[in-house]
């Protein structure tokens, strides 16, 4: 279910946490859905189980997933708070990109078309699984 780029400079555990977050945000992973076990994922991806454990711990600390003793890891219901800090960061990032887009001559309608496209993608992601 995950594809990792072992040649990338980005640490594996960061790739893993980013991937899971992305899948949660796009609605591919739903609340209370079980994540693959450390063991299964380790042999599937040929990744050190300690690295996967670490990624899961980090995701749990950030509130994206929760673990049940002896049962495994599950997707947490989206919470407004961790969205807030995320939003603030995203805003600055968007502003930076937007400045670049303005510089390159993007029009307002082109940018709003992109917004609609992202919206459609998310809807599709939700209707699929």
């Amino acid at each position, binding site marked *: 279910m995950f594809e990792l780029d072992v040649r990338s400079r980005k640490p594996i*555990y*960061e790739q893993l946490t980013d991937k899971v977050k992305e899948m949660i945000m796009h609605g591919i992973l739903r609340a209370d859905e079980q994540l693959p076990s450390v063991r299964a994922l380790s*042999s599937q991806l040929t990744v*050190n189980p*300690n690295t996967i454990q670490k990624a899961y711990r980090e995701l749990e600390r950030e509130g994206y997933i929760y673990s049940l003793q002896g049962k495994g890891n599950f997707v947490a219901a989206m919470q407004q708070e961790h969205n807030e800090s995320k939003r603030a960061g995203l805003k600055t990032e968007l502003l930076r990109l937007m400045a670049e887009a303005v510089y390159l001559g993007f029009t307002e309608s082109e940018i709003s078309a992109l917004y609609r496209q992202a919206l459609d993608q998310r809807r599709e992601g939700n209707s699929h699984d």
Partner: protein
Amino acid sequence: MIEIRGVSKIFQGDKAVDQLSLTVHKGAIYGLLGSNGAGKTTLLKTLAGIYRPDAGTVKLGGQPVYESPEVKRRMIFMPDSPYFFPQATIRSMAAFYKSIYPDWSQKRYDELLAMFRLDPRRKLSRFSKGMQRQAALLLALSCRPEVLIMDEPIDGLDPVMRRQIKNLLFQEVAERELTVLISSHNLREIEDLCDHVGIMHEGRMLVEKDLDDLKSDTHKVQVAFRDERHAAALESILQILHREERGSVRLYIVKGERERISQAFHVYDPYVLDLLPLTLEEIFIYEMGGAGYDAQPIIL
């Protein structure tokens, strides 16, 4: 699980290992890196109880290793070139290991034999180098050790076998918390395999850390400033390990948190700013450079 405290080993006045300390937790995969002649093999042999340390202590699960058969039963040392008895086959070696290691698992042996597709009746001396390595690993894992020490284990294995063996080790780590200590020069392999690394040079440990922490602690920054003066201002506030100038683009190796570095650079709003994590190879080279061991641009 493994505790090495202040260990020295001296050969004819030369300190091969010098006051070295190292800790490996249970279930970790630890990669030992180092320059040629840094003392890696000496350290591993001391850990395996083959050498007696001249100073310091080597303990496994709280027990000293040297001349302690009970402790040695819980670990396996795989030397850089596999050793088998003359005329031995996998089957005869298996019988030998079985007589020494009480936790020997016949079931595991049969499973692994099927996986590696090696003929247990063929003489080991007739196997290729890579097949001998596979045989050595097969025998080692069948002993169900708590600690597996491997000196340069990846040499001579094809990519499929490497992946297979990696998976096998990961499985043992996930299922029964096998502790693995590996020495190697192949940094790419170590990067994929290990969660902790230590870098040795001239008998000492230069760095010892969680691999991901090590990688997220050092960054490569490519930057083109709007004004040359910005460079000097930044260089004074950041911990810079290495700098290079390529025209108007500067390359820095900076120690510190990604966020902090990124912010420091963004203040000056440079034309170009690229922040990349380092590869293990780059970390190795810069750390070694810091210790006065760097590649000289030599033309002979």
